């Protein structure tokens, strides 16, 4: 049994925490997270951790039960089923949110409505949902008569393997909705999934845009850097002649700005209908790294 409104909550995932922000309860209710302070990009969380109100509970796979107990949460938002018996023993209720597997756009948009009753914030959830829904309607209207449909790939390149975002994922849906052609629409999966290199190469032959999962910190600093990850795929069109985008570090913690993220993706797909848009969540990768360019100019 969970008493509402919940006053103290511990949350495992970025999406859970950013949803609390969307509901307007983060500052007052969040007391524990599973990511250390230096990895947070949400100011309210950083400040809360600095003041000691929000505690780092340890990695999600190795929760410090003592610290969790000390924080006295009234609810834990987790994806880890293994922690449930321990929480039962401590008498702490939990909600298994499974947000990492919330693949479709609808689930992402409605997740806020699932959490809202815990905090009696249904009105805030409705407002958030409306905001995202309006953003989608605007995207559809703006891109309806946009130029030619860009062909899009979304995934990641490793030394010998490739992962892609399946067609049933929210990005695939959004790309379709924004009058664009998602090249892995036929791939089905519950999360980013490995496909054959030949399929990736074949699709890459006429793709215009490639979104990589990798941030600059994990190597996506330039098109040349992405090409170096797997020389076999260095000749895909987005790398040789198209555009490659990488997420900025705060992207994965920006679920409360879902409407802006969706609009930004639409603006990347159809820059002609969003001429004023400035990128906030993604970065278009330059051809080469700054050091390489400096070397060339010398």
């Amino acid at each position, binding site marked *: 049994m969970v008493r509402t409104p919940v006053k103290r909550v511990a949350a495992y995932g970025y999406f859970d925490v950013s949803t609390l922000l969307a509901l307007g309860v983060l500052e007052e209710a969040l007391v524990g997270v599973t990511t250390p302070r230096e990895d947070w990009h949400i100011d309210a969380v950083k400040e809360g951790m600095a003041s000691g109100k929000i505690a780092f509970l340890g990695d999600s796979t190795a929760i410090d039960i003592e610290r969790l107990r000390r924080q006295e949460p009234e609810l834990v938002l987790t994806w880890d089923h293994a922690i449930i018996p321990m929480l039962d023993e401590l008498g702490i209720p939990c909600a298994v949110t499974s947000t990492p597997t919330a693949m479709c756009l609808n689930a992402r948009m409605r997740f806020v409505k699932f959490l809202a009753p815990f905090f009696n914030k249904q009105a805030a959830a409705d407002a958030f949902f409306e905001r995202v829904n309006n953003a989608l309607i605007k995207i559809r209207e703006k891109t309806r008569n946009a130029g030619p449909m860009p062909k899009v790939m979304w995934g990641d390149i490793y030394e010998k393997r490739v992962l892609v975002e399946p067609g049933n994922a929210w990005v695939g849906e959004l790309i379709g909705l924004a009058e664009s052609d998602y090249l892995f629409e036929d791939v089905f999966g519950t999360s980013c999934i490995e496909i054959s290199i030949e399929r990736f190469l*074949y699709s890459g032959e006429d793709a215009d845009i490639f979104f990589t999962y990798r941030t600059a910190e994990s190597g996506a600093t330039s098109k040349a850097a992405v090409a170096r990850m797997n020389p076999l795929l260095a000749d895909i069109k987005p790398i040789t002649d198209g555009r490659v985008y990488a997420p900025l570090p705060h992207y994965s913690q920006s679920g409360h700005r879902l409407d802006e993220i969706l609009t930004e993706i639409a603006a990347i797909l159809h820059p002609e209908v969003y001429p004023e848009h400035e990128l906030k969540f993604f970065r278009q990768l330059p051809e080469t790294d700054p050091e390489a360019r400096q070397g060339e100019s010398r």
Partner: protein
Amino acid sequence: MTVARSNTLGACTPTGWRRPAAAFIFFGALTAALVVLNIGIGSIAFSPADILQTLIAPESGTTMSAIIWKIRIPRAIAAVLGGAFLAVSGLLLQVYFRNPIVGPFILGISSGATVMVSFVMLTTLTVGMTVISPFMTTLAAFIGAYGVMLIIVAVAYRVKSGITLLIIGLMMGYLCHAVTSILTALAEKEKIKGFVLWELGSFSGFKWSEISILLVCGGLILLLVYLLSKPLNAFLLGETYAASMGVNIRRFRILILLCACALAGMITSMAGPVAFVGLAVPHMARLVFQTSDNRILIPGVCLMGALVASLCDFIARMLLSPVELPLSAITAFFGAPIVIGLLMKRRVEL
């Protein structure tokens, strides 16, 4: 230790050769057919005529040519060589330890490769090393696998008992696993995905340069192993017997270990850990060829290893195409029931 049922060691009469010869022809043809299938069929469909044209006169710069020559053919060859090397490695270790449930990774080779790859993929040690980054994972796995192999060989010099060596190998595996677990627990989530992918093993993405290394180095080791087949037969009948036949036991033991670890380490460094082939295939080969004579069994195990790995790779690629299934899952799916069945029926002994 007993010898397999039908043939005694070194007693291959003309009639005794018939079964192995027939098996070699049948399974050789099957393996060749699978290689053709692996080159001809993939997630992108090409007509047989186009494939033939690309094979005869490859046009550089076309995607089809790149798919056939840079992706499918190296992968098909890698599956053949990978299966053969792992199976021979497993056979050597089963003979060495006189234990039918020993595989190439029992001595911690894959754990050594895994721990080094985890250092590369899960930490920031390699940030900025852009020049060698495409080969970083392979290089790290190579260092890890061969690092463990050197430790094991060094231990083997000092320790006579096979069981002690086996236990030390297992402990090495646990140590490496502990380090990998700590690194995984501390790693950023986005890095873990790539590491998990590597751990599942695959013949995907092999380069011609790697195939050349496999062909030259692995080929030489296989040749050496075949030349050792007679002493191996003697070793199978006991160290005292082998010594009485003029085998230098200490040097021979080290040689077997070096060959087994080098073969398994080579594949693990390039493909990641591929489970069960090394453990299950020697048993399958003993069943098919009905002998423990290593002069037949070594090429037989090569052939069966190539067949099983090619088949498993085909299934991994095509079952949910274009999605790739983890190779180790397919090999285990195949290997585990076979080993269980064979051991339950006790149809296979060393």
